[in-house]
């Protein structure tokens, strides 16, 4: 009870800070320097239509690299956490009720579509809303579907790991190429910018986003697979 009271009191304090923030908040009337630069320069410099994507993949590419790394880390650690100790005892698998016919059929039908949609989302990230992360998540949801329909199936950890790693290496590698061929690490202008608004434009952005998508998809999948395979209690 004391704890609850203390928490309320403290959250009142934090709330006061937040209130202070809101009271002092005055919405900008015009874009600030940074935003204006992005608005004006993205198209001519990078050739990307989706400014957010340009920022994510190029201008703040380092953040994105970190972000991808976060997922990589999480996947690895989830693997570590769940692997800990479970390798000692042989998993005592239980018999689950078989999945319904509907689910099986649905999976068979939907899976290619989902994967395709995912790929679309991350390859068109520089043009339309969406990108590697969203696409990756969609691919992972396809994986999820498979997990639901074949709960007992062992998945290709190896494949997932290889996709994940190669995508990661490629991301880093493209970044490094930026140093060699263009203005710096993660510069997308190692490839021609192409025609604004087309699929193969904006330099390396689609490529990077593709790898990000693959990597994110692989990472989420690996997390899900790891979680699903730890039913041994």
């Amino acid at each position, binding site marked *: 009870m004391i704890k609850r009271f203390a928490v309320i009191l403290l959250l009142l304090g934090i709330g006061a800070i937040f209130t202070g923030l809101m009271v002092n908040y005055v919405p900008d009337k015009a874009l600030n320097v940074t935003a204006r630069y992005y608005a004006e320069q993205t198209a001519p410099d990078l050739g990307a239509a989706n400014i957010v994507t340009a920022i994510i993949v190029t201008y703040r590419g380092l953040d994105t690299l970190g972000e991808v790394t976060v997922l990589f880390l999480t996947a690895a650690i989830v693997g570590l956490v769940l692997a800990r100790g479970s390798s000692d005892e042989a998993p005592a698998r239980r018999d689950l009720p078989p999945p319904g016919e509907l689910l099986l059929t649905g999976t068979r039908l939907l899976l290619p579509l989902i994967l395709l949609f995912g790929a679309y989302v991350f390859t068109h990230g520089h043009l339309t809303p*969406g990108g590697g992360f969203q696409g990756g998540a969609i691919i992972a949801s396809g994986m999820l579907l498979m997990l639901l329909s074949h709960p007992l199936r062992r998945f290709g950890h190896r494949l997932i790991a290889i996709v994940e790693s190669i995508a990661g290496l490629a991301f880093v590698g493209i970044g490094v190429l930026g140093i060699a061929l263009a203005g710096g690490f993660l510069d997308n202008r190692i490839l021609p910018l192409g025609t604004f608004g087309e699929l193969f434009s904006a330099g390396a952005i689609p490529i990077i986003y593709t790898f990000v998508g693959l990597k994110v998809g692989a990472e989420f999948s690996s997390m899900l697979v790891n*979680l699903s395979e730890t039913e041994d209690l």
Partner: protein
Amino acid sequence: MNLNIGMALLLAIGMIGTAIMATRGKRSLGISILAAGLASLLASVMFLLLGAPDVAMTEAAIGSGLTTFLFFFVLGRVRRGEND
């Protein structure tokens, strides 16, 4: 414009409601998780209203979708453990 604001208000009320539902300790965990996912989904609608389609997609796919599944995966394991 008023429509937008009205919708935003509705969404806000919905989010707060689901958030409280998610964090109240009395309901079952499954409902809490669902409520949290719902709040996230409502948030992604809000993002759309705020002119952030990228964020909206991400929130919907990752924040409300994948996260919820992750929760349920773990919940399932834990439940089964509790039953044992």
